[in-house]
């Protein structure tokens, strides 16, 4: 083992992928479509969300191409509205919300807690089917002509003025919502009731804590979105309702109900990503996460505070000044647990034996970009600056820094990190490090100019803009091209690695989690025998002793 890497692979000339594993246990399409195995469902989810990510990504490409020139040169303004709406809907509801929890979380959480499966395997499968139904409904919407409300369905725009496919999109998100409720419910129940002997709450990996917190948000927030969308759909169908002022309704009520979910949804999207980063930072600096308890509770704190800040999306929408004041202060409060995480990761790195494998590179990308995204969130949480910056490209840049720079980086970090566990094979290291760097560079090129555009006053959601903004927009579009390459590369080499990657062995990273102590790919039941947790999380000394014992016994 060289000093520059912690990767330890078995001898490639003799190593084999275990014959018996969850991928080979049963064959045939039906064995996949009717499976109860969390790892297979995670695989189904991974394939489907990747599919929707690339649809959403192509739409993003169209948006950036249109914005290359100040005029509406590529598409008409109406088409542009539909394109950015579909981009938002697909990316938020079909990619970001299920990304880490439904794929990586589904795959590793049962193993991390030492269980054979999630508590409710059939509900887990149902959740994937609901996701697929929602996906088809969104595709139908696109084929039928799209929807142009923006992903926020703002009433009365969505209920009164538009004549696009609001109903099918609304129902699609309703269905996707239940998919996410069932995932969250399953996680909470599993984490409460399925932990193996010795696995106390404070021995759980931080990834589990983060997903637990996100699951609370899914379970409590999503039903409110569901009923809100039902009311929007009813309002469009019978032309009477509680949101449209023309019928005597209150559009602010819509905003309250919508953001009551959709603000916590932001944390649904970012918290599992933070969990990934905790695992990766610890593994690649060979240290227990600094302030484990603080990081664990900061996840829960984010979930709790997350429910009390929604009206910061409404500062310019006519809520009272006093409400704005309170919500502004509460918004500042959320910055605290997020900062706790960033500082604790930084302290974990301090005096750690850091190596720079791909997951770690993505994790570093996450830390930098999330910090920028989070800090600009504080600008937007202050009522004064928000009134200047809201509905400009500053907002667009802010949430893309958090969601793409944060969550997507974390997702890719996690995918690379658990890829050897998932498939039994390593991804190619050099090209993936290259991809991580390309993504980081492309991302900054794309979205940093948008902060400047926003402060200069370029409004979001318009197909045309004054010519003086063109230079920065050209930068942004050029960056998006680089970013696109950064996202295509992993698809190519990860697919390649399925057949040609090096055999990974049980624990290529020398990581401590229970999921690394079983074979790769794991058995359908994860462990041969129910594991017993007899050490703390991230205990690298325990792992070392364990390996010495193993060598001794083999010798």
């Amino acid at each position, binding site marked *: 083992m060289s000093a520059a890497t912690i990767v330890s692979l078995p001898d490639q000339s003799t190593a084999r992928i275990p014959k018996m594993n969850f991928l080979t246990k049963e064959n045939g399409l039906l064995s996949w479509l009717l499976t109860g195995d969390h790892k297979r469902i995670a695989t189904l989810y991974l394939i489907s969300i990747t599919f929707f990510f690339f649809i959403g990504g192509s739409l993003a490409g169209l948006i950036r191409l249109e914005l290359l020139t100040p005029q509406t040169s590529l598409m008409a303004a109406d088409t542009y509205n539909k394109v950015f709406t579909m981009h938002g809907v697909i990316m938020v509801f079909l990619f970001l919300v299920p990304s880490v929890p439904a794929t990586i979380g589904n795959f590793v959480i049962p193993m991390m807690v030492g269980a*054979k499966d*999630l508590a409710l395997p059939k509900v887990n499968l149902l959740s994937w089917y609901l996701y697929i139904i929602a996906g088809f409904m969104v595709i139908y919407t696109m084929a039928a002509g799209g929807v142009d409300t923006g992903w926020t369905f703002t009433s009365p725009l969505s209920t009164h003025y538009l004549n696009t496919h609001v109903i099918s999109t609304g129902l699609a998100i309703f269905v996707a919502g239940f998919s996410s409720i069932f995932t969250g419910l399953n996680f909470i*129940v599993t984490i409460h*009731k399925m932990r193996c002997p010795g696995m106390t709450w404070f021995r759980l990996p931080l990834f589990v804590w983060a997903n637990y917190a996100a699951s609370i948000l899914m379970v409590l927030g999503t039903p409110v979105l569901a009923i809100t969308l039902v009311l929007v759909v*009813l309002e469009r*169908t019978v032309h009477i309702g*509680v949101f449209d002022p023309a019928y*005597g309704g209150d559009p602010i009520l819509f905003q309250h109900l919508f953001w009551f979910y959709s603000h916590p949804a932001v944390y649904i999207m970012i918290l599992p990503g933070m969990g990934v980063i905790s695992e990766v930072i610890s593994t690649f600096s060979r240290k227990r996460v600094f302030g484990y308890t603080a990081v664990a509770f900061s996840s829960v704190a984010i979930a709790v505070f997350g429910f009390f800040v929604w009206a910061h999306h409404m500062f310019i929408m006519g809520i009272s000044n006093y409400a704005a004041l309170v919500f502004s202060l509460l918004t500042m409060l959320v910055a605290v647990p997020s900062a706790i995480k960033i500082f604790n990761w930084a302290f974990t790195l301090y005096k750690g034996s850091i190596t720079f494998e791909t997951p770690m590179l993505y994790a570093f990308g996450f830390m930098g970009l999330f910090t920028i995204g989070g800090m600009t969130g504080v600008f937007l949480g202050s009522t004064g600056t928000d009134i200047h910056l809201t509905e400009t490209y500053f907002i667009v840049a802010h949430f893309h820094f958090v969601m793409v720079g944060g969550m997507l980086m974390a997702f890719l970090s996690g995918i690379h990190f658990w890829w050897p566990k998932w498939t039994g094979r390593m991804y190619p290291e050099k090209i993936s490090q290259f991809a991580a760097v390309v993504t980081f560079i492309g991302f900054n090129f794309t979205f940093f100019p948008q902060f400047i555009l926003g402060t200069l006053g370029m409004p979001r959601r318009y197909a045309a803009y004054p010519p003086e903004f063109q230079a920065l927009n050209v930068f942004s579009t050029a960056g998006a091209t680089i970013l696109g390459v950064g996202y295509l590369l992993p698809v190519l080499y990860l697919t390649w690695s399925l057949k040609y990657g090096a055999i990974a062995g*049980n624990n290529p990273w020398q990581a401590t989690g229970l999921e690394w102590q079983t074979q790769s790919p794991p058995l359908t039941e994860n462990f*041969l025998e129910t594991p017993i947790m007899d050490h703390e999380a991230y205990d690298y000394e325990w792992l070392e002793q364990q390996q010495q014992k193993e060598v001794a016994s083999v010798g």
Partner: protein
Amino acid sequence: MSDSTAISNSAAAETHHEHPPYQRHHFETVEQQADTTNFAMWLFLLTEVMFFGGLFTSYLIMRNWYYPAFVEASHQLNIGWGTANTAVLIMSSFTMAMGVWSAETRRKGALVLCLSLTFVLGLAFLGIKTIEYHEKWEKHHVPGLNWSDASFLNPASDPEVHKDYPGDQPLAPDMAQKAQMYFFLYFAMTGMHALHMIIGISILGFMIVRARAGAYTTGHVTYVENFGLYWHFVDIIWIFLFPLLYLISRH
């Protein structure tokens, strides 16, 4: 095959004794399974509370805004049918509770009887609800589809209701329009509740068939128990809907 149990303790290794057929493979014990599914059901009911919460919030806000319209519109509801339905639902909750008890005490006949009674009472509730919906249709009180302000512009034009509520004043046209909002929420809330009833009744039908085959009287009662929780929850939603829609404006 590689070693996948680096940390398992061989002394505690599970001796593979016979599992009862209803124990799913991924649970260690039947108790764990019962505990887990029970917890899951409570959590699901929590999401349902949030789901209906959105409707209740909208109702309370709109009621504050358009108080006169909401009062007169709620006078249009038939308290007799509403009370009857409340009684039917409470009775069905009782038979459901007895069903859980029968399953626990392994009385197959009693279980089938209790589930069937719950099934019939559930259908009775929906039947009465249909009568009420029909009445709304005939009186042109279905928002959007079949609507007329007449009963609120001129309460005297509706002698049956006016007899009981002689104090109802004619509303100004814009306020009379808002009675439509009341009925929108009335249909949304009772409709969503009825949808939950329909789902419950369908599951009940399936359970009756299984109960006749003896599936729930073998000591494994979590399915019946968890369904009971759901049924009582749907009942409780009605217990909130009934006063908010029917009773609150009655003096």
